[in-house]
């Protein structure tokens, strides 16, 4: 996969942690997912037909997920912007530090490009950082998907391609998780009038 595409995938993941508006964050995720599917299609030459199917699955995911997330956003309108726990600069700095940490600490995996490998692990950690630092439930859901895209990036980079059933199965599970998360978001919104998960902090020991 070309370094430019990998950079787009990584940069859009990092941008999700900074985006204030939910619509912008969804658009960034759409860009990331599209770049990922384009990257997969560029690798289909010389690979099996099953890999082509996996690339198609990623393309469907890139087109369908943002639409679903946008519909969910419309159904759970926020009365006003939810303030983040940390400022955008510190969030970006934290996520960038995690990406660098991944580049330094994760051992080289033969067969995949070092840049792809670091970007994949970096995206997974960025997804975790989004969940940890963003309060809106939708942003936390986006963090989950960014992390999953990190896995997909590494999966398509496997020499010869990984069994496409993993990709299909993982997408099925992702859709299931997003459906359940959507149900939760609607219930949280009904209960609190907002998707601000900061208000759900009653359970402590």
């Amino acid at each position: 996969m070309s370094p430019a595409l990998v950079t787009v995938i990584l940069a859009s993941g990092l941008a999700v942690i900074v985006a204030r508006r939910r619509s912008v964050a969804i658009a960034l995720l759409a860009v990331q997912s599209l770049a990922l599917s384009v990257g997969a299609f560029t690798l289909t030459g010389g690979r099996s037909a099953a890999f082509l199917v996996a690339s198609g699955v990623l393309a469907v995911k890139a087109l369908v997920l943002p639409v679903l997330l946008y519909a969910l956003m419309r159904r759970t309108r926020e009365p006003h912007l939810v303030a983040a726990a940390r400022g955008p600069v510190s969030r970006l700095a934290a996520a960038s530090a995690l990406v660098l940490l991944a580049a330094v600490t994760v051992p080289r995996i033969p067969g995949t490009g070092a840049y792809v490998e670091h970007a994949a692990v970096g995206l997974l950690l960025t997804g975790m950082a989004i969940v940890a630092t963003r309060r809106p439930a939708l942003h936390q859901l986006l963090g989950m998907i960014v992390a999953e895209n990190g896995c997909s990036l590494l999966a398509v980079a496997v020499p010869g391609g990984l069994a496409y059933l993993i990709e299909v199965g993982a997408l099925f599970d992702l859709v299931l998780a997003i459906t359940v998360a959507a149900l939760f978001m609607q219930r949280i919104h009904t209960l609190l009038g907002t998707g601000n998960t900061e208000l759900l902090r009653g359970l402590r020991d």
Partner: protein
Amino acid sequence: MTDAGRLARWAALPVAAGALALAALAVAHGSRPLYDGSWLLLDDTGGLFLAVSAMVGLAGVLLSPAYLRGREGAHARGSEAWYYGVLFAFWLALLAVPLCANLALAWLIIDATTASSALLVAFSGRREALEAGWKYLILTALGLSLALLGIIVIGIAQALIHHHDLSALSFGALRRDADLLPHGTILAGFVLLIAGLAVKIGWAPVHNWLPDAHSEAPAPVSALLSAALLPTVTLVAWRVKDALAPALGARTAATVFIAFGVASILIAIPFLWRTMPWKRLLAYSTLEHMGIIAVGIGFGSRLALTGVAIHVAGHAFGKALGFYSAMPLGPDEQPTPGHPRPGLLARRRLPAIGMGISLGTLAGLPPSPLFVSELLIVLGGIATGHAAVSIVVAAALALGFLGLLHAMLEGVVGDDAPGRVLPAAEVAS
């Protein structure tokens, strides 16, 4: 009982009977697997976990009407069919995991359990239940993404020796190819996978969702989570350890399990000494017991693994009984910081006896099977040269024993003024 309840009861009996028959066949066949294919594995270890999930699931379905009866209103009645549908989906997925011969397939099914069980955790619709369900969904989904990354790395290791298809991720293929797999890649994959599964198992320090989800879920679901789901995911981690040990080095694989196990036990112990509602106390006890199972798997000797098998069964009995006993208890019958002695025995004899037996079993009070299993695990550790770890574990278990015994004496036998009702604010605190 509603139509949904009756239907669920009649459907649960053949499901449980089929699973138990399969488990009995697998266990009776001895140490050699009854069937070992690329997708399906039927062995004695899987049989044990299958039997546990079958029993706890059956009890959960049969006792669910008692839980649902406590809910009132048209919405509650309408949601019963939904409750049973999701409960069955969760239970069937749990029954499938011990039969999975393929790591990727096992991951997919475990991931699917997250969706159904998260919905069940939040079933009551209370604010706290929503918080617990959301936290559980997001944290375990992230953990399972980490585990997926580990599986992909293991898949890369297999691809490097020209095994590209999905069967390369079966436990049999991993065991067969272990000597050929590159050490560094396999180590990275193993650590990522186990760290990811640890979130789902609830091993410390990635256990944050566990006390909340167990305490807020309906009691039959709490029992399934604690007694069946967490041990079942542990079984997958155990199978991976066994398959990859030749590539990793037995010591390395064992160390990861022992580290998670000891951390879980040590973090759980202080909470077992604190006064808290019954289900929350049982949740922290789960953290301790998942730690003991991890340590036993890490020790890996025949003695320790026999202890693990007894522990899984004994823990399932004790924990399920505890959650079911807590089901009919109201807020004024819960130990809280302002009300540590609800004197349950004087007021609610049957739940008190159930809770007493549960806490005694979980504490390892003889003749509890957990006394035997913990002894076997500690002795197994000493036999494999882990004397220092075994001593730490034994000391921690002694403290845990005293903590649960204290909870039993204070909360069950305690003689607080009967019928005292706490102010809502005090209960909430």
